[in-house]
């Protein structure tokens, strides 16, 4: 048995401190320790992207990161992006454009898409497909996911323009 480590994490703006084995995977920390069940476990083998969260400005598959690696980091999950009463533009857009069916991949999709739009606010369809290639969906065939993200980008840009 290895020693437990003192871990500090800022998740969705809130500080957390706890003792954990370094080998604990971040996805389990989020889901089981912090009760943030938005990030999902799809494959557990770094392939599906359902567990995607943002860590210090990077989109990361949280099934492939030890909690020890994330010690001291800022983490954003889907819960920090929008809430049922105040949906993020991306969430609204996925609903509007049928960007989901069963919804299992959706938290990872939207978390990844939010980072993509931050880095590239005006992506082409090809750039959206390339930037979303780490997220698998078994239902939609991707067409409507791409449409949702492009529509959200247009909406966010319109809001920005109106504010200027």
């Amino acid at each position: 048995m290895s020693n437990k480590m003192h871990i500090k994490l800022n998740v969705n703006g809130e500080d957390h401190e706890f003792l954990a084995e370094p080998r604990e995977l971040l996805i389990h920390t989020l889901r089981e320790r912090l009760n943030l069940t938005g990030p999902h476990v799809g494959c557990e083998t770094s392939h599906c992207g359902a567990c995607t969260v943002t860590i210090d400005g990077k989109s990361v598959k949280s099934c492939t990161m030890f909690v020890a690696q994330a010690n001291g980091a800022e983490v954003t999950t889907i819960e920090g992006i929008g809430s049922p009463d105040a949906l993020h533009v991306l969430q609204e857009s996925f609903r509007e454009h049928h960007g989901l069916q069963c919804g299992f991949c959706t938290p990872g999709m939207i978390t990844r898409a939010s980072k993509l739009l931050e880095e590239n606010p005006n992506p082409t369809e090809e750039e959206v497909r390339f930037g979303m290639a780490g997220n698998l969906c078994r239902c939609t065939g991707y067409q409507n996911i791409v449409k949702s993200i492009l529509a959200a980008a247009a909406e966010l840009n319109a809001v920005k323009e109106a504010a200027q």
Partner: protein
Amino acid sequence: MIPAAFDYYRPNDVKGVIALLNEHGDDARVMAGGHSLIPMMKLRMAEVPHLIDLQDVVALKGIAIGGGRITLGALVTQHELIDHDGLAQTAPILRETARQIADPQVRYMGTVGGNVANGDPGNDMPGLMQCLNADFTLVGPDGERTVAARDFYEAAYMTAREDDEILVGVSFDAPKGGQAYEKQKRKIGDYATAAAAVVLTKENGTCTSASIAMTNLSDIPVFSQDASDALIGTSVEDNAIRAAVAAMLKDIDPVEDNRGPVAFKQHAASIILTRAIKSAWDRA
């Protein structure tokens, strides 16, 4: 899928890393992005009682371009390679290769050092580094030494790096002329069925230098001197390309696996190398 327990260390300089490797010997292993190592630990194919996370070792970060030479710190990520405008100018083959590795999430974490030190024949950077004739800089208890990428690989997961050494960076001359990395894979995020890195120069319609390396077609990356030589002095017409492909096929040694039988891999390697040569020649 939870790996066996380990002790975790996060030193902030190379000296600290080497001291830990010295102290724990075979039981210790460094981790960069973890996107090759963690999956292996989860499958319990790698057992690492002492895990040394490199993320705080600032000396291993950064991209330097100067005097025609490019140096990449071991911790430079694939995402950074794609994002770096200076590199896109001086060595566009790096971006072209990195874009064909894994997917965006993996590329935020996966590093140059991890990719070339890993020793997995499926990794794309080793072949690229052989094509660029890169040098790998290693640091151990006795100081620093340099090993050419073309001499670094011994067998799958076996390299010239000693257990108590770490790779601190790679460096190479900014490639001149046309360059291309072509990769055949079954789907996004897959390792290569066959991939080819080509750099060549053109003067008055004649090829004056060429370098060709192949990925995942042997238990190590394959730099093919004969394939490179087959292009030099030609105008890279179809006959010359066929000669280069024939020479390459003598140097690779693919095995049958879930990406296909040997004959299929040779066929894919031929097509991919032909495409890479044509593309590099067009760009030269």
